[in-house]
């Protein structure tokens, strides 16, 4: 897909874009990478000469929602141009080639761009039973990942599957689905979410391409730019939370008034993502704005911390509805019953001792 010796500007010219389009793209890309305005000139001069970075997009255990999200990025010029800019050499879902031709694309890309291509991984890698649960072209997901990651300049884990396992890794995780950061040695940019926000994906790729370096990452490998704050911290319903105005059930008056969804299980207070700032579908809305609590899809193990409409996870082994509070109340009541019984037994068994104590006060003088 495209000649990788062309510069970004040359390839845009070949596609009929004007210089103005190119400059607009550079400006948008610089903004996405978090650069100030004075740095746009540097981006322009870089893109004038920089050749298109080769990209390999691997799909393992996933549902392709990350790809679906990615192609819906809200900045058309960035999305359009970026897909053109990137020399997307191999991606099972979008490429025209199939079979042996497709596999040749992959091996050629690795051979011709050693140490220079960007690897994007969508999906978790199953390890159980020698990885038979996800095989492409007769090879296991793990062996493909190891082979491609070895010579990659940068690795991005798209979505919760690749970042933390997501639903594939939900208990009891029958296939042994594993996040890719646990399998390869180089640093991985985790972009969790099910799917991640399209504009966040674009921005991360842009950052890599424009600056040629990894964005600042937190201790879970997530770009700080987008994952350093909780959905809750920037939620427009936050004032209702602080006031104590909560939706009690989904069809009540409080829901109509747009109160906080905390009591109907919103996981916004424990979820790090940019939904309430960047929003979805060209900034149209995000789940909480549409009246549904956050399900915490960008957090590790969100699938096992259900039920989704309950604020606290259910207590294991006591049925789906019992929370720590149900169990705690039972233990507390049992304790009260226990001490009451003990008090009764004490008065029966120790009446002599009690009598002695009382006798101390009444010397027979």
């Amino acid at each position, binding site marked *: 897909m495209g000649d990788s010796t062309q510069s970004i500007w040359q390839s845009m010219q070949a596609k009929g874009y004007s210089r103005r389009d190119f400059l607009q793209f550079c400006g948008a890309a610089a903004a996405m990478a978090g650069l100030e305005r004075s740095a746009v000139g540097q981006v322009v001069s870089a893109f004038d000469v920089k050749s298109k970075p080769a990209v390999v997009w691997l799909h393992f255990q996933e549902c392709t929602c990350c790809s679906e999200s990615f192609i819906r990025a809200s900045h058309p010029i960035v999305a359009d141009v970026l897909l053109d800019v990137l020399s997307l050499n191999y991606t099972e879902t979008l490429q025209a080639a199939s079979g042996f031709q497709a596999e040749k694309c992959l091996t050629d890309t690795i051979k011709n761009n050693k140490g220079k291509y960007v690897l994007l991984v969508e999906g978790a890698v199953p390890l159980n039973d020698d990885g038979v649960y996800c095989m492409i072209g007769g090879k296991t997901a793990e062996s493909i990942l190891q082979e491609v990651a070895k010579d990659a300049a940068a690795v991005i884990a798209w979505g919760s599957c690749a970042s933390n396992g997501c639903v594939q890794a939900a208990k009891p995780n029958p296939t042994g689905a594993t996040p890719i950061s646990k399998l390869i040695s180089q640093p991985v940019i985790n972009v969790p979410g099910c799917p991640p926000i399209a504009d966040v994906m674009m921005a991360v790729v842009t950052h890599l391409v424009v600056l040629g370096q990894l964005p600042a990452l937190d*201790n879970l490998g997530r770009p700080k730019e987008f994952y350093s704050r909780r959905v809750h911290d920037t939620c427009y319903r936050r004032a209702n939370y602080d006031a104590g105005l909560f939706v009690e059930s989904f069809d009540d008056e409080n829901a109509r008034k747009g109160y906080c969804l905390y009591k109907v299980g919103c996981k916004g207070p*424990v979820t790090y993502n940019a939904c309430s700032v960047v929003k979805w579908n060209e900034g149209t809305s995000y789940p909480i704005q549409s009246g549904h609590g956050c399900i915490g899809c960008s957090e590790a193990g969100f699938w096992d911390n259900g039920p989704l409409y309950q604020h606290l996870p259910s207590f294991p082994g006591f049925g789906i509805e019992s929370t720590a*509070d149900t169990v705690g109340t039972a233990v*507390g009541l049992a304790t009260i019953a226990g001490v009451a019984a003990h008090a009764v037994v004490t008065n029966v068994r*120790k009446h002599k*001792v009690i009598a002695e104590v009382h006798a*101390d006060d009444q010397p027979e003088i």
Partner: protein
Amino acid sequence: MKANAVSAGPAPAPGHPVDYRRIYVWELPVRLYHGINAVCLVGLIITGYLIGAPIRPFYAAEAYQLYWFGGVRFVHFICAFFYVFNFAFRIYWGFVGNKYADWKNFFPITRRQRQEIVDVVKADVLQVKLHGPISAGHNSLAAFIYFFTFLAFLVQAITGFALYSSMSSSWLPRMFTWIVPIMGGEMGVRYWHHLFMWFFVTFIIVHVYLSFYHDYIEGRGTISSIVGGWKFEREKSDQ
């Protein structure tokens, strides 16, 4: 406890009044620690439970007219800070306080302490023995259980600060940010923080009951000692 541990002997001979000796067991810092700890813990449990299951005692049409839930959380955080520094002070006092406050009480190090645990279980819990040891300070079993409550203090403080760290830039909560990933995200941290609350509820029930139990069975001012610091011990008869 130690040298002052005596057993309640048989009733004195008729015509011979019983003499009691005062012992200053709980020094003022220990009593203050206990009072602050009790107030903070009850405050933390009530506000913590409300944070988990909020109620709406006031009505307002618009959010700006109220700060009820924010206030509940604020009280929780204030209590938590008092509680942590109060606990840190108590650890310090375990090294400089009197022998009843000494840190060594809380670990069954000596054979005598371990024997006392067995005796307390027999006399007070199972009640297969009528007369058990009566120690001036903590009995060894109670002290050892307090050690576990100290561990629970630590769990609550660490998970609490870990949860608080995302809304704070001060150094103390920030020290615990690393807890969040190893406990499987904030959902996990919050879950354990919530679950341990019930340990304290259970502990308070048993602790208050047993204080009254000992006061009733031994008649030596166990309850008043935590206010005034004095306990009373029967003088050994010279017969």
